[in-house]
């Protein structure tokens, strides 16, 4: 099986799925905005102007101003950078942990497997949001801590997925052949098994980034995520909640941004799943 | 095209007196790879009280034919692309679903292949038999339950009162198949379609179930469409036998005639590899080559790639024994059936020229 042509075939199928393409476009759009916020707005996201508190959308401030007179559009653009990188880094951590645990459990089987999988079961018993909040209470809410916490509480699904893939892959002929040629465990795991689990991991990762962005925005919304004055979509919404009776724009736009980003990642993820394995379509 | 399948010219059994008459039935499926044909114009009939065997390898379209008769094919992906299914002179295909429900279970019923999976795991066996009475308004709930027990007794289910209250998983395959048979016969339908009724069972149980079917058939005077891959079974039970290959009936004849004088090379192959023509052998014998994928059926006779006549003709031509490829037609045209005796049809180019058309 040629990895290269499989990738091309997958991309071809992906490009034929209009929903997946739309999802990819949304994701790309927000990434560009996050990388080059000055393309859209020249306002300083942290400039306080007490004369312009809670102004509705206007030419000068297309998305209005917040309770400190800061430009909402500028804050959202810079918030995009924070929210997207939290989602990305947190999910990378989750994938990393899930990958190692899943590979070890699936490859070694037996006691190692049952021990690791019991650990997964135990972790799944905790309401994730409770666990995240509890850890934050101990180590405090900084951006890095938030990334770390979302990552270490969100790897269980990936671990189960990788374990299942590894279990079936290790019985395949090419693994036996590699072993017969004297390949070591590390080589078999990383050279032969890992690349074959990439497709489902990619799907899980895409959906996972969406999930991490949702969790981060929820935490920031509650005031225990990204801390002001650093803007994030979630903490702009906090101001929206506090001024719910006079400033609808503070609630509407950041939420819309979260919604579209998450929707984009979800559509892209589902699209990748269908493209990788067309049999699962419509499930 | 004088011998188009389904023209009434065929035989006495297919005349106006037929109970079931399937004519040029074509069925296709939509798959990931595009549309695939499963039935290429299947025609046969069943007379009242008659047992017709439908024999072929798995995947040849036997079950699709059965499900199509009861209109139980899932559409989509299945699609009926042509043909008629006459039952008591009425075409079933255009019937409204509600009328079709009246036919199912009451006029035509079906015994499924897998007793393990064709009983609902969350309903008791008694409930599932009784359902057939209530569905057709034959009687009230309580009476239906009593009649279900009566029928379980008739099919010799041990301890029927207790078994009626049990769930399918608590029973053996043989008992489940007895329950299925009770359900199928409960309203004394005029036609029962038995789709490999014994395939999933142990050998000893197979004989018992066939015996039961035989007995019930005589008692209830019903017609049976017996679908099987077991030539021994049709030999013992079927009045007439149809041989299916790749979505076509390649030969149909009174069973005795078919076993004595098979015309189609596929039938000949099947019979030749029955050891002593006894019933010990349950599997279809091996014929060289494999059944082509339905999505890639070659033009011409579907059996040509495995056919000894066709392969012989190719060898003669290649070795120069024969000046021309005298059976080249096999690769170009799908043969239509010709008559080789009363009610004996077979679709083979070679035999038509060798034996002469309409040889009686």
């Amino acid at each position, binding site marked *: 099986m040629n990895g290269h042509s499989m990738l091309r075939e997958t991309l071809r199928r992906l490009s034929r799925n209009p929903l997946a393409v739309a999802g990819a476009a949304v994701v790309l759009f927000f990434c560009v905005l996050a990388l080059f916020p000055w393309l859209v707005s020249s306002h300083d996201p942290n400039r306080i102007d007490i004369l312009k508190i809670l102004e509705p959308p206007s030419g000068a401030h297309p998305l209005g101003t917040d309770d400190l007179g800061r430009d909402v559009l500028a804050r959202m653009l810079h918030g995009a950078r924070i929210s997207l990188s939290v989602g990305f880094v947190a999910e990378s951590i989750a994938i990393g942990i899930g990958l190692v645990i899943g590979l070890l459990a699936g490859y070694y089987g037996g006691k190692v497997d049952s021990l690791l999988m019991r650990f997964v079961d135990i972790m799944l*018993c905790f309401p994730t*949001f409770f666990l995240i909040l509890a850890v934050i209470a101990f180590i405090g809410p900084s951006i890095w801590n938030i990334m770390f916490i979302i990552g270490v509480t969100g790897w269980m699904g990936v671990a189960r997925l990788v374990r299942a893939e590894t279990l079936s892959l290790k019985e395949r002929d090419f693994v036996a052949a590699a072993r017969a040629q004297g390949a070591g465990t590390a080589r078999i795991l990383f050279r032969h098994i890992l690349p074959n689990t990439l497709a489902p991991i990619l799907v899980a990762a895409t959906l996972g980034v969406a999930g991490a962005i949702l969790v981060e925005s929820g935490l920031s919304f509650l005031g225990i995520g990204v801390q002001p004055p650093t803007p994030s979509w979630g903490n702009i919404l906090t101001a929206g909640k506090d001024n719910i009776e006079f400033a609808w724009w503070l609630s509407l736009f950041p939420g819309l941004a979260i919604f579209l980003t998450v929707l984009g990642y979800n559509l892209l993820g589902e699209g990748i799943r269908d493209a990788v394995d067309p049999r699962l379509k419509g499930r | 095209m004088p011998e188009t399948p389904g023209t009434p010219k065929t035989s006495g059994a297919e005349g106006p007196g037929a109970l079931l008459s399937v004519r040029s039935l074509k069925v296709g499926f939509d798959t990931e790879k595009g549309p695939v044909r499963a039935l290429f114009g299947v025609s046969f009939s069943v007379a009242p009280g008659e047992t017709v065997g439908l024999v072929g390898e798995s995947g040849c379209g036997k079950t699709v034919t059965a499900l199509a008769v009861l209109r139980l094919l899932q559409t989509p992906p299945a699609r009926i692309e042509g043909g008629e299914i006459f039952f008591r002179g009425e075409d079933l295909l255009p019937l409204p679903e509600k009328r079709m429900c009246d036919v199912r279970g009451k006029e035509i019923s079906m015994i499924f292949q897998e007793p393990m999976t064709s009983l609902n795991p*969350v309903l008791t066996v008694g409930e599932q038999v009784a359902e057939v009475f209530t569905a057709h308004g034959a009687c009230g709930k309580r009476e239906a339950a009593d009649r279900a027990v009566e029928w379980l007794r008739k099919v010799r289910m041990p301890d029927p009162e207790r078994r009626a209250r049990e769930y399918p998983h608590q029973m053996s395959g043989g008992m489940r198949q007895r329950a299925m048979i009770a359900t199928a016969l409960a309203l004394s339908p005029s036609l029962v379609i038995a789709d490999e009724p014994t395939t999933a069972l142990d050998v000893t149980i197979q004989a018992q179930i066939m015996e039961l079917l035989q007995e019930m058939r005589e008692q209830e005077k019903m017609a049976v469409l017996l679908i099987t891959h077991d030539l021994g079974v049709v030999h013992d039970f079927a009045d007439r036998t149809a041989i299916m290959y790749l979505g076509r009936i390649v030969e149909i004849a009174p069973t005795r005639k078919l076993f004595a004088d098979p015309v189609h090379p596929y039938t000949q192959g099947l019979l030749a590899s029955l050891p002593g023509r006894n019933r010990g052998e349950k599997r279809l014998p091996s014929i060289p080559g494999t059944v082509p994928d339905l999505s890639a059926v070659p033009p011409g006779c579907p059996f040509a790639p495995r056919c000894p006549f066709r392969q012989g003709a190719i060898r003669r031509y290649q070795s120069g024994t024969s000046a021309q490829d005298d059976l080249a037609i096999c690769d170009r045209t799908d043969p239509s059936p010709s008559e080789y005796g009363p009610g004996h049809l077979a679709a083979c180019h070679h035999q038509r020229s060798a034996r002469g058309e309409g040889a009686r």
Partner: protein
Amino acid sequence: MLRYVVRRVLVSVPLLIGISLITFGVINMAPGGPIGISSDLNPKATAEYRERLKAYYGLDQPLYVQYGRWLGRMAVLDFGDSFSADGRKVWDKIRERILVTLSINVLSMALIFLVAVPLGIYSAVRKGSVFDRVATVTVFTGFAIPTFWLALLLMILFGVRLGWLPISGLVSLEYDTLPLAGKILDRAAHLVLPVFLMAFGGLAGISRYMRSTMLEVIRQDYIAAARSKGLPERAVVFRHAVRNALLPVITILGLSVPGLLGGSVIFETIFAIPGMGQLFFQGVMSRDYPLIMGILTIGAFLTLLGNILADVGYALADPRIKTERAG
């Protein structure tokens, strides 16, 4: 059946021990243990409060002794005293609020079940129809909407603009003066938005799940067999298919407990509902560690209980398990 339940509970014991180990680990993972924390949230981490902690955890003892004592107290629901000004027992504080949270969770779960199941059935039976497509799009949207944002929008719409529904608390200020019917109505009105929002996330997922198990069941032989008896489509779907398709959904409902509990932190905070979620949030904000650990443990315990109940429910609904244990 009883034996099945007992066995199912016994299997959970190692999980319970694991849960206690992790909760214990969380306390000790903080740099310098539970009292060595440099605080961002609560700068008033005084020396006196450190002493209280030290005494509570017995930090002079070796780790396994600390764990043993922690486990012993956990078994009798002794989570220590709250760090807050009132200094009450943590379990007492949880106890007076847990019912509110549980009843909202149960109501949400009932709503999920009542709406998602028919939705899933109808989508599956009419697969590919306009209804199914609209439902699919709605589900996708539902997955992506941040529910706390939806909460804000609904508060603006129904609370602020239309003024139809209250947006804070469980009862109105004048609750005590209302007649009985008014009291019930008042409570119900306060519950509408929180219960709907809590259910919203689950609705999308479970209706989707119901749809796919229905599609799976409809392909089974016994459905064709039921049709072959001449049963009308209605009976085939409801009597034969739905019963089987519901079985896995019972398990999934059990698995939705942790999500609902997590959601209650957000919604009880937004709607100022005096439940366990709000208490937890307040505990996190004020670094009330005994309270945090208490609720974390209770949350894990409830999740485990949800799983057990789901398994028992499954066993009751599936004769294959029920009769196996009886016989």
